[in-house]
């Protein structure tokens, strides 16, 4: 229960209570409040005082609970100086948010603080007012006593920052659900200690570009010069330099590392990954157990906002795909999707090892047919960043995020060599995220707008994106990938593209529409050729 009297008291006396000699000490405020009530009940002046106010003295416990109640109703309306350990004996209030408290009081006793603003004006227009002189001196005191960080401006700023950084419950619940639903994967840290790597490199036995053995006795012996080596070798990944007769270590690392095609003649340094089998196994067992435990918890998901109601038990659709020329395909066959991912082969005026499409071929795609409301992920590069943005606009989307994929090499470093861009080297790729309509079924912000992942074959994008999308829309939302290849097909996803193998469709309505489309095409093409002939 909210103690209205206390709220009113705090509003009316906040200046005096925060100023010396009380200086906001909760104990003293409690006494002040109690004695004030005594005085009121003796004078029999208060018409509106409740039964509570009539009591002779209010216990400190009760007073503290009332304060906590008020603070809980609107977090931040009372700020405590030593909030780190909120022990009741030493607590001091250093700020009272008068406006919030007034609103709070108005909710209970409507109209009680209506004329507040005009009252201030009246007061300030008469500085000579004797009733005010004490508060003026208080103010002067507080200015003299405070340093720059405690000025009202800084306090207001802190409070605003606090309010802005306060995450809503949907965010917290969403994060928690993402954590519960995402399967754990083995995570093994990579050692960054150069000394460890060079010592282990000298010990490792390498044969045909593989670490075949690591001598325990030698590692033990090296432990004396390099304490902690053994433990590190057993718990982290190390990169062992793969020195060959032609290697010239002074040249530094190969730009291609494990993807180098000239391993037998390249003079730069290459590396081999070393981790003990025991570590890999222990981690895998650990992860399998964690996953099994969390799988049982997943059946009792209570926060189902935006999800299929039988999210835990409903099976995911198997992978579906259609091989087709996307530029000529009838998108009406596919129906509507929650998410569309497109990785078009933009013509960025470079000689690429695959065919590219013209801007107009891409921007004229009827992608607006695929979603009534939903998310479109569009991979772009170079000048296509701007073309992509304007296409998104044209299709009815608005760019709400830009994801960067930070491409890493074998050693987990960003790619900085190889003239990968025209003016500067390119270490990242852009993924535009467009949103259409106002989808309220999304689980927002369970991931950051970055992917750190190794680059693979030309134009192959990181698989991490699929996990991010699943957390965003749930496992059963319809998901489409346009311009996909075989490695992109996966359960829960529909993939179309010209490099796929044949087709597989499980959704009956799509299958029917696709068959009619094929029949129509056949029947159309026959007369056309016959007239030509």
């Amino acid at each position, binding site marked *: 229960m909210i103690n209205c009297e206390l709220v009113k008291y705090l509003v009316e006396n906040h200046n005096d209570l925060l100023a010396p000699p009380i200086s906001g000490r909760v104990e003293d405020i409690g006494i002040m409040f109690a004695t004030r009530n005594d005085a009121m009940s003796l004078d029999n002046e208060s018409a509106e005082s409740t039964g509570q106010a009539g009591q002779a003295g209010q216990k400190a416990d009760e007073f503290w609970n009332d304060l906590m109640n008020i603070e809980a109703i609107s977090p931040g309306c009372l700020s405590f100086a030593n909030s780190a350990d909120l022990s009741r004996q030493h607590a001091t209030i250093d700020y009272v948010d008068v406006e919030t408290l007034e609103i709070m009081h108005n909710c209970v006793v409507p109209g009680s603080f209506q004329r507040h603003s005009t009252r201030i004006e009246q007061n300030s227009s008469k500085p000579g007012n004797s009733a005010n002189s004490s508060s003026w001196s208080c103010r002067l005191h507080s200015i003299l006593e405070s340093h720059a960080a405690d000025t009202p401006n800084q306090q207001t700023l802190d409070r605003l920052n606090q309010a*802005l*950084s306060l995450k809503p419950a949907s965010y917290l619940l969403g994060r928690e659900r993402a*954590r519960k639903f*995402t399967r754990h*994967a083995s*995570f*093994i840290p990579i050692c960054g200690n150069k000394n460890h790597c060079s010592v282990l490199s000298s010990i*490792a036995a390498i044969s045909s570009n593989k670490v075949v053995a*690591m001598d*325990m006795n030698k*590692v033990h012996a090296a432990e004396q010069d390099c304490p902690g080596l053994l433990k590190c070798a057993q718990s982290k990944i190390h990169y062992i330099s793969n020195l060959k007769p032609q290697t010239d270590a002074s040249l*530094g690392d190969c730009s291609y590392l494990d993807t180098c095609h000239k391993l037998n003649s390249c003079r730069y*340094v290459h590396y081999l*990954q070393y*981790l*003990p*089998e*025991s570590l*890999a*196994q222990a981690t*895998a067992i650990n992860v*399998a157990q964690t*996953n099994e435990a969390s799988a049982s918890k997943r059946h009792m998901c209570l926060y189902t906002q935006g999800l299929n109601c039988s999210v835990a038990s409903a099976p995911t659709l198997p992978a579906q795909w259609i091989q087709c020329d996307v530029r000529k395909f009838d998108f009406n066959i596919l129906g509507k999707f929650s998410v569309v991912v497109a990785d078009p082969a933009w013509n960025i005026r470079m000689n690429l090892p695959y065919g590219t499409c013209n801007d107009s071929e891409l921007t004229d795609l009827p992608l607006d047919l695929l979603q009534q409301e939903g998310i479109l992920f569009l991979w772009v590069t170079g000048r296509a960043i*701007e073309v992509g943005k304007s296409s998104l606009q044209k299709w009815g989307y608005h760019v*709400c*995020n*830009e*994801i960067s994929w*930070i491409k*890493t090499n074998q050693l*987990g470093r*960003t790619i*900085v*060599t190889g003239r*990968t*861009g025209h*003016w*500067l*080297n390119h*270490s*990242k790729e*852009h993924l535009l*995220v467009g*949103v259409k309509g106002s989808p309220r079924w999304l689980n*927002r*912000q*369970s*991931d*950051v*707008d*970055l*992917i*750190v*992942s*190794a680059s693979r074959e030309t134009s192959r994008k990181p698989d*991490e994106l699929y996990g991010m999308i699943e*957390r*965003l829309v749930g496992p059963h939302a319809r998901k489409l990938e346009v311009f996909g290849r075989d490695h992109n097909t*996966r*359960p829960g996803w529909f993939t179309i593209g010209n490099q796929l193998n044949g087709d597989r469709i499980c959704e009956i309505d799509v299958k029917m529409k696709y068959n009619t489309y094929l029949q129509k095409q056949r029947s159309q093409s026959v007369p056309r050729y016959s007239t030509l002939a």
Partner: protein
Amino acid sequence: MTRLTMYSDHTPLKNAAEGSKKRRNNSLKPAAQPHSNDYTEHYVHTCLPPQKFVKNSENQVEGYPNLQKLFRLKEKHVARHATKPYGCRVNIDEMCSTLNGWIYKHKLVFDVVMIGCLTDNQFIYPLLTSLPIDKLISKPGFLFIWGSAQKINELTKLLQNDGWAKKFRKSEELVFIPVDKSSPFYPGLDNNDEALFEKMQWHCWMCITGTVRRATDGHLIHCNVDTDLNIESENLQNSAIPAHLYKIAENFSTATRRLHIIPARTGTETPVRVRPGWVIMSPDVILNNFDSAKYQEEISKLGTHLPTRSEIEVLRPKSPTQKKAT
């Protein structure tokens, strides 16, 4: 892919019993299969952002001795031919008139102009549209505009405006990433409720005006020295602008006339430091010593571009020489 991982999860369980025996003999026996980490999944479970695991954040060119040497040489070369640091403290609403004075009264031009810094409260679009920015920048010249991804996205309007698009070509988009959420460069305010993914990056447009060719204009520009990505390193000096943002511009263009305009209040906690070779205009810059006459005198002594240095020419990445057409 998912099916594959499912199976691989189960196999170790089966082998575990056999494995434990062998393990005691040699716990360092190398694993047969390579391992790769999924940092996105790791973030969901641990809240450690993926960029924390990038191994060369402290030294981008780690492992490349020639590139390291190039960076050192360039840094020295730039420092040797730099004007003294200039600051020009101007309120945001007076920036335009001050710059117009520089353009029309003092006939000042700059070859490198950087606009903006890593704060949310910038007035970039209004500044760009109210300023004859093409008169402030020489031809060829280079313009770097830094801001939140949202602010930079708004600039797309400029490209749709013919006047702007004719004068400037957007040539690269750079990204700066804070190391985690406690970083002073974490763009917290950019994360409105609408964002689908938590925003962790700052963007920059690199624009070119006039004509430069990367194959033949080595006296004006050095291409492919830096990359379009920078991750905050832990040992940064407290400042409104990470020094790396200046270095990208210094490494790219050989010009000595460099101007940085910050159309934002940055406060006292993240000071706007001055930097040799740059004129920095900001309402909060710590030094206010700019004098256009003195600056022009210094530039005339220094020259408008760095002299070519053979050691750098040998090391810097160059376009492959074109075979003569027969």
